[in-house]
């Protein structure tokens, strides 16, 4: 069985000459993996630094953990190697059993939702189980996949294209349904029993990132400009409102447009010198600009308050009616206006709806812009700048508009952030923020609005929900990135709907294989 599968999978190779036995290949890979795990593990896991009496730095060794890893990880590799050569059953059985063992509710209780409060195991050991459990799941899943496709051999190009087209069509139809459902759910959620204050507060953060993701999507997804310093515009928006509020006493609603315009102006000013660069070079320069803004914020003590930031920024008001228990003389508060009992939650719920509306404005503006000549020029520029020049499109201006509009939405989000927190400091605008926003865009599927929203829920909402993961948040973050890139290399929901259709879309997609 193994040999016939090999033959089908590697059509170009001479199978007639004796192929090495699957077992031998697998053992070789296993030994290699064991050595690799040891080399990596002995340094990263084997030694743990420890502070002694808060003064001296020492270390403890954890060689037993390294040995466990060296023992377990190569087994997974061995199973995968066998699977790749057609022997899927060992991977299926061992992977499945291992998954049950590591993830099993009985052994660790990890399956229970409130596991982190009632852990039978110390947290770290539970995490180790989770990691091995995920590894076992990977082995199990791979085995299932190869068993399902066994005997089909390597798929031909038209077949793969057809599968790709089917996938894109599925993503399109899913998005068409999912978009309105998500919006409707977001609108009614605070009124449902699940919409308690804590959840809504988390969702405010998620929606901020959804908005930032949609804003960056214009720059990265549509115009194809890799911007690693997007957080700079977010910072400009936040500080603009902070200054306007504390110095001039402007309210959030008065400052919002100013912050947007100011951020857009910054986008143009930063973009003008750097936008003739392409690809990697642009990414590096935008990264530098992002850091520059942050360092200016830290060092310009007199204006930005330096590392201490700016505090007591004006809180959001219900179009002039503050959310306070007792307002100043002659000012009606929100609860008095509606004759409600005062509650601290009102402000949170209002913030939720404000960011929802702001995010949806970003979304609809993007959808509309895509169908305008400027949006088509962005996408054309992403595809081929040389051809654009030949068609008389001004590349610099076109890129600048993308940069400016993306920056403007970041500015709106920034001033929302400032009014929500009541406090801004440079710490909130580090490179990792840019990285997270970019990950949201890439994971969501570049250019896909619904995909970006899903990715934001995943990347921001999940860590929020699993706050207790603490140290391991970045690990989970990295793992989810790797997994999505493995299974969905083009992002969660990647498809591209033409901005103009000549023929009404027929139900069955026309696959390029059917074209004459």
């Amino acid at each position, binding site marked *: 069985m193994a040999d016939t599968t090999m033959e089908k999978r590697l059509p170009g190779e001479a199978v007639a000459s004796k192929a090495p036995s699957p077992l031998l290949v697998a053992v070789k890979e296993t030994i290699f993996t064991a050595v690799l795990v040891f080399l990596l593990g002995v340094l990263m896991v084997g030694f743990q630094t420890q502070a002694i009496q808060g003064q001296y730095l020492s270390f403890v060794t954890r060689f037993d953990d390294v040995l466990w890893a060296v023992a377990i990880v190569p087994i997974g590799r061995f199973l995968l190697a066998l699977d790749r050569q057609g022997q899927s059953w060992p991977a299926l059985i061992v992977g499945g059993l291992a998954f049950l063992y590591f993830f099993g509710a009985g052994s660790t209780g990890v399956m229970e939702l409130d596991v982190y409060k009632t852990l039978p195991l110390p947290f770290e050991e539970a995490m180790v189980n989770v990691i091995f459990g995920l590894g076992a799941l990977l082995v199990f899943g791979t085995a299932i996949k190869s068993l399902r496709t066994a005997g089909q051999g390597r798929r031909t190009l038209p077949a793969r294209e057809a599968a790709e087209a089917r996938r894109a069509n599925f993503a399109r139809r899913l998005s068409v349904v999912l978009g309105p459902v998500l919006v409707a759910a977001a609108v009614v959620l605070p009124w449902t029993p699940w919409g308690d204050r804590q959840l809504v507060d988390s969702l405010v953060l998620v929606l901020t990132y959804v908005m930032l993701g949609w804003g960056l999507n214009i720059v990265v997804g549509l115009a194809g400009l890799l911007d690693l310093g997007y957080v700079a515009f977010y910072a400009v928006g936040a500080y603009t409102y902070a200054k306007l509020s504390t110095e001039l006493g402007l309210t959030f609603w008065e400052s919002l447009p100013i912050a947007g315009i100011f951020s857009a102006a910054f986008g143009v000013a930063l973009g003008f010198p750097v936008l003739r660069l392409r690809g990697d070079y642009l990414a590096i320069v935008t990264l530098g600009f992002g850091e520059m803004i942050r360092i200016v914020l830290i060092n310009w003590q007199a204006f930005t308050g330096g590392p201490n930031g700016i505090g007591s920024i004006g809180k959001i008001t219900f179009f002039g009616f503050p959310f306070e228990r007792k307002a100043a003389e002659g000012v009606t508060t929100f609860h008095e206006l509606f004759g409600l009992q005062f509650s601290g939650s009102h402000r949170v719920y209002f913030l939720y709806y404000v960011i929802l509306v702001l995010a949806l404005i970003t979304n609809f503006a993007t959808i509309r812009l895509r169908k305008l000549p400027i949006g088509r020029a962005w996408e*054309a520029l992403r595809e*081929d700048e040389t051809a654009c020049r030949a*068609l*008389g499109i001004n590349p610099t201006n076109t890129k600048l508009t993308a940069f400016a509009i993306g920056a403007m939405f970041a500015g709106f989000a920034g001033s929302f952030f400032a009014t929500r927190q009541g406090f801004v400091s440079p710490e909130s605008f580090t490179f990792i923020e840019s990285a997270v926003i970019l990950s949201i865009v890439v994971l969501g599927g570049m250019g896909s609005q619904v995909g970006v929203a899903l990715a934001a829920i995943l990347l921001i909402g999940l860590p929020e929900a699993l706050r207790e993961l603490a140290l391991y948040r970045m690990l989970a973050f990295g793992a989810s990135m790797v997994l999505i890139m493995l299974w969905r290399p083009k992002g969660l929901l990647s498809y591209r709907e*033409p901005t103009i259709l000549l023929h009404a879309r027929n139900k069955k997609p026309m696959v390029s294989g059917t074209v004459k």
Partner: protein
Amino acid sequence: MNAALQQMTEPAMPLLTVEHLTMRFGGLVAIDDASFVAQHREITGVIGPNGAGKTTLFNCITGFYKPTVGRLTLAAADRPPMLLEQMEGFKIGQQASVARTFQNVRLFTGMSVLENLMVAQHNKLMRASGYTFLGLLGLPSFNRAERVARDLAVHWLDRIGLTHLADEPAGSLPYGDQRRLEIARAMCTEPVLLCLDEPAAGLNPRESAELNTLLRSIRDELGIGILLIEHDMSVVMGTCDHIVVLDYGRKIADGSPSEIRSDPAVIRAYLGEEEE
């Protein structure tokens, strides 16, 4: 300068006048003092062995390169003559209405066929959309302009026979269709001079014959000038009114197809010198 421009506006002025064009890359002279003209309503062929400087010539005319020496004058019927060598790259497409295709097809592969043709009408539509501001509001004047642009795109799709594939990604088209689509995209910019860089490369004989028909109909119906680089002699001899031959960056011959066919310098360049 003004007097010179005055003179140039005479109707006798050819569509494109290339004077003493020289393009050097460091020590390499890609084009060496080439002068020729391309007339209105004519297909001017540019031929020559590989490396003769044909594509470099196109890159100079369409603003991708700045010529080291020389003058390129474009004299369209409805506007004052323009000096192409002084214009920034994209403005040659935007203001001088020179369109081009590329030796290796450069379509927007991820965008649909129709979108490729809409992008070509970018400048016109940008004005109609009030540089995006009015377009955001969805004013009827913009929608009208968009419809007109779409009709022009459909007109060209009909002519190249790709209307049924209008909503497919351009990258999924077969090679011959992509070549034709690139010509249609260039035509959607409503050019006065169309520069085609080896449009018949990779086409089969039937497709080349269709290309001949298309090029002749563009010339006859729209009255624009075409500058054509081509190795396929059936296309060159079948369509060109006038042929310029380059070899090692120098112009070695210039004349009607029949003259070129019997020109000893051309035969030498293509077949090599006879040993004597």
